[in-house]
């Protein structure tokens, strides 16, 4: 959680650029999605996945201490955003840490009482790898029109009742709202996942203009 003096507030789905400067002047910058709901405070939450060979994420996850200062640019983005007024139904599709900007949308929705019909399809490697597992279970059980559907791609517990395997066209055909419902769709995660999900949604008859994507690319760290 960061406190940003003069923070103008953000919209769900926006990101910030975090810049680190080494003592010798070398700079490294990465983009991180804001995971907290829009709020009238100057605090925001980022969720950072540590990549072993990353330049920035090892510092943010291991060395950064409460009270340290960071250089931030943002909030950024007017495209991959969702506001309450945009309505739904919503289909959110995430792979791994791609859940972060979608979490800001889910928190925004929950904070407003959550009447927008929403389905989240979330792909994780294993049960242990599910980010926000407890919070998702909680808001998914609140009976406010949010369905949380997990799929696990590597390790599946013996008593697992969710889905298994990568998200494919068939899984999307089962989970997605029909195109006639004119859903808004947000897809976020590693580039290959985002591309295959977006292509599959369009092939299922969805308007590509309503499928918004945020690819993480190969160098998220």
């Amino acid at each position: 959680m960061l406190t940003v003096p003069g923070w103008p507030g953000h919209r769900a789905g926006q990101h910030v650029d975090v810049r680190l400067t080494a003592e010798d002047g070398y700079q490294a910058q990465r983009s991180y999605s804001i995971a907290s709901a829009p709020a009238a405070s100057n605090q925001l939450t980022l969720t950072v996945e540590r990549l072993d060979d990353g330049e920035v994420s090892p510092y943010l996850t291991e060395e950064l201490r409460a009270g340290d200062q960071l250089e931030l640019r943002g909030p950024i983005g007017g495209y991959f955003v969702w506001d309450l007024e945009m309505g739904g139904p919503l289909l959110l599709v995430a792979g791994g840490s791609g859940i972060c900007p979608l979490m800001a949308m889910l928190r925004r929705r929950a904070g407003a009482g959550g009447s927008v019909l929403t389905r989240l399809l979330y792909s994780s490697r294993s049960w242990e790898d599910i980010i926000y597992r407890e919070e998702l279970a909680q808001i998914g059980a609140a009976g406010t029109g949010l369905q949380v559907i997990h799929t696990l791609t590597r390790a599946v517990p013996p008593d697992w009742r969710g889905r298994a395997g990568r998200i494919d066209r068939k899984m999307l055909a089962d989970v997605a709202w029909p195109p006639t419902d004119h859903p808004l769709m947000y897809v976020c995660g590693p580039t290959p996942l985002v591309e295959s999900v977006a292509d599959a949604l369009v092939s299922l008859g969805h308007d590509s203009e309503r499928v918004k994507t945020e690819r993480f690319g190969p160098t998220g760290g």
Partner: protein
Amino acid sequence: MDNRQMRLDGNALGGLLRELFAADVTAARGACAGCGAVGALGAQHLYMHPLAPGAVLRCRGCDSVLMVVVRGEGRIRLAVQGMAWLDIDDRTSGLD
């Protein structure tokens, strides 16, 4: 690794463009000078790497280069020869 795996969304260029434009232009719609397709900048394909000095935005329809941004030695060069026009909604741009 092929080009597809390197791909990002124009949305990721928002921070750099925010230094050049007074408004956030990732939601602004532009027209590809190559194929005429119209779409949000944030939805186009972006090729950008943290260690590279610049970024290339390509049309997601025809892959033509829309915009190139290069940064280095205290300068930023913006080339927009691939875009016929850019339309910014001043109600949402933050310019008001």
